[in-house]
């Protein structure tokens, strides 16, 4: 009897080891008004079993952006693999505006040629795919309904990554904005049942695949922040039984302790020029925002207030910081001009607003809003002050915006467990990234890596 629980523990451990990626996306809310597109399963032109599906990656990427609604394979009127094979009249009633078709051919051992075409269905329906243009005094078929077409040799391991690459091309062609599907996320995995290393710092593709551990610790890890070149992470660690800030190169594993003042050393955020960290120290009495120049170690105090000031976050031009302050009684978001040091209050709606960050390119910010005791992710226009709550989940925290501003990843609670949630910036598409072992928190979206 006595050894049965032990045996179960071992089985449990084996099971969790064998289970693949800890993140596995569950879609909680779709979009009704997103643009309809079709990603037709690419035609396999080889013999033997077909390689991993590339089209599933493209369709789910486009769905996550909240701007597209990929059609289910069974609702497609035909399965073309090239633009020539498309019968546009058959696609007319589907209201699909763009189609991705492609082929996969075996190349040398373990390598494949993947070709794809992105077709503007509306344009093709207008011209019948026969639009002509003048070229050297001759009228030729312009094929202007084909928005992009490429052929590339990839290895079996590169299927997911190349799928994200195609998603980036499709997204940019159809929206005019850069896609963020080849970005990564960093997050903290907490496994309270682990007798030794309860806390792990992880990185993964933005959709949770290719999860990799970069640090494990017996003591809490917090607040990962990416360097703008995507090669380093700054984070807070309690490994020495007090809070300190470290910088770690994710490729060379080189670590450096950069802040270890008396009191808290919290909330590091890398500046857009990569030279400094904004951080929070309480060495002078209570938590205030500072900047630390990494090469010279020069420390500059940005806020000086008797209340809590924390959670600094840089504007894209590096001229402003958003931060959370209690100076008005309850925590709200403020903005400081780093040159003039002028501080203005930004949020007024709800009982509290915390964890603010700018949405790239936009005059908007994302915050954690508390209204009637509920914590949700919200966005607010900086100038007009109008706020829109984006999530419906429980105890939402730590929002991090994709570098193209299209999506927000955040920490939330589902069935008593901390998990990551994903929401499109318009709030219309929502997904949950549950974990099989432990709890996931403190997500940080990487900058553009490619």
């Amino acid at each position, binding site marked *: 009897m006595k050894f049965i629980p032990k045996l179960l523990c071992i089985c449990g451990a084996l099971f969790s080891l064998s289970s693949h990626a800890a993140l596995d996306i569950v879609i909680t809310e779709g979009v009704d008004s997103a643009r309809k597109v079709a990603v037709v399963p690419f035609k396999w032109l080889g013999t033997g079993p077909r390689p991993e599906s590339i089209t599933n990656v493209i369709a789910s990427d486009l769905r996550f952006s909240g701007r597209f609604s990929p059609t289910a394979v069974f609702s497609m009127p035909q399965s073309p693999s090239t633009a020539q094979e498309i019968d546009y009249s058959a696609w007319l009633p589907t209201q699909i505006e763009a189609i991705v078709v492609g082929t996969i051919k075996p190349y040398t051992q373990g390598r494949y040629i993947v070709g794809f075409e992105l077709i503007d269905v509306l344009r093709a329906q207008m011209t019948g795919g026969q639009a002509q243009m003048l070229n050297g005094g001759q009228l030729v078929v312009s094929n202007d309904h084909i928005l992009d077409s490429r052929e590339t040799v990839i290895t079996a391991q590169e299927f997911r990554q190349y799928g994200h690459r195609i998603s980036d091309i499709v997204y940019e062609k159809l929206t005019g904005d850069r896609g963020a599907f080849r970005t990564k996320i960093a997050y903290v995995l907490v496994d309270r049942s682990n007798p030794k290393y309860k806390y792990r710092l992880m990185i993964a593709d933005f959709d949770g695949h290719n999860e990799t551990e970069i640090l494990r610790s017996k003591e809490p890890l917090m607040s990962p922040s990416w360097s703008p070149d995507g090669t380093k992470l700054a984070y807070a660690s309690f490994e020495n039984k007090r809070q300190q800030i470290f910088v770690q190169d994710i490729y060379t594993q080189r670590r450096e302790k950069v802040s270890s003042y008396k009191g808290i050393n*919290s909330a590091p955020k890398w500046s857009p020029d990569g030279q400094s960290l904004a951080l929070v120290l309480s060495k002078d009495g*209570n938590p205030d925002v500072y900047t630390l120049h990494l090469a010279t170690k020069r420390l500059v105090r940005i806020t000086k207030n008797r209340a809590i000031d924390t959670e600094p976050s840089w504007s894209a031009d590096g001229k402003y910081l958003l931060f*959370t302050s209690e100076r008005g009684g309850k925590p709200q978001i403020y903005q400081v001009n780093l040159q003039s040091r002028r501080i203005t209050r930004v949020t007024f709606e709800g009982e509290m607003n*915390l964890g603010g960050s700018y949405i790239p390119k936009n005059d908007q910010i994302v915050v954690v809003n508390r209204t009637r005791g509920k*914590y949700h992710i919200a966005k607010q226009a900086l100038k007009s002050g109008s706020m829109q709550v984006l999530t419906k989940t429980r105890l939402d925290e730590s929002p991090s915006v994709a570098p193209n501003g299209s999506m927000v990843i955040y920490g939330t*609670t589902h069935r008593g467990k901390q998990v990551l949630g994903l929401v499109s910036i318009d709030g219309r598409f929502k997904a949950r990234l549950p974990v099989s072992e432990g709890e996931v928190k403190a997500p940080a979206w990487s900058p553009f890596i490619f």
Partner: protein
Amino acid sequence: MRLNKVAKSLVVAIPMFALAACGSTSTADADSQQTNQVADNNDTVVTAPVVKELTPAEKQRLVLQELRKEHIIYFDFDTANVSSTFASLLDSHAEYLRNNAGANVLVEGHADERGTPEYNIALGERRAKAVERYLEGLGVNASQIETVSYGEEKPLDNSGTESGFSQNRRAVLVY
């Protein structure tokens, strides 16, 4: 015979009570009770225990053992006010620290899971510092007290319920 058993258990129990109490109260009452109990016994011979005089180090260890059982101060939501409920608890810790100048205490500040992790680090520090100031107000030397904030990173109760949250909003005195 039954009376004998009771008497024997008292002989064992009373010195234990005396040991536990010697840190704060006089043991004179317990001693006299013990003498009376043994005299009432019908046996021909009875041995009587002598309470061993404890060394200062042993006394300190025993007091510390008691203090470790009562070492958590709980807080209301988003506040760092030390409630009067914990006055006697903090009194006994302050007394111990005053009497043992070489002893040091680490005050850990914690928060519940609501709000953001970084804000909760600040809130946890405020709670730890509130306890630190309280102890200093009772005459404890500032150099004996260290503080650390773990924010929401080390919850006592993971249930995510109101009662769980109230367990997690705490300061812990660690020796």
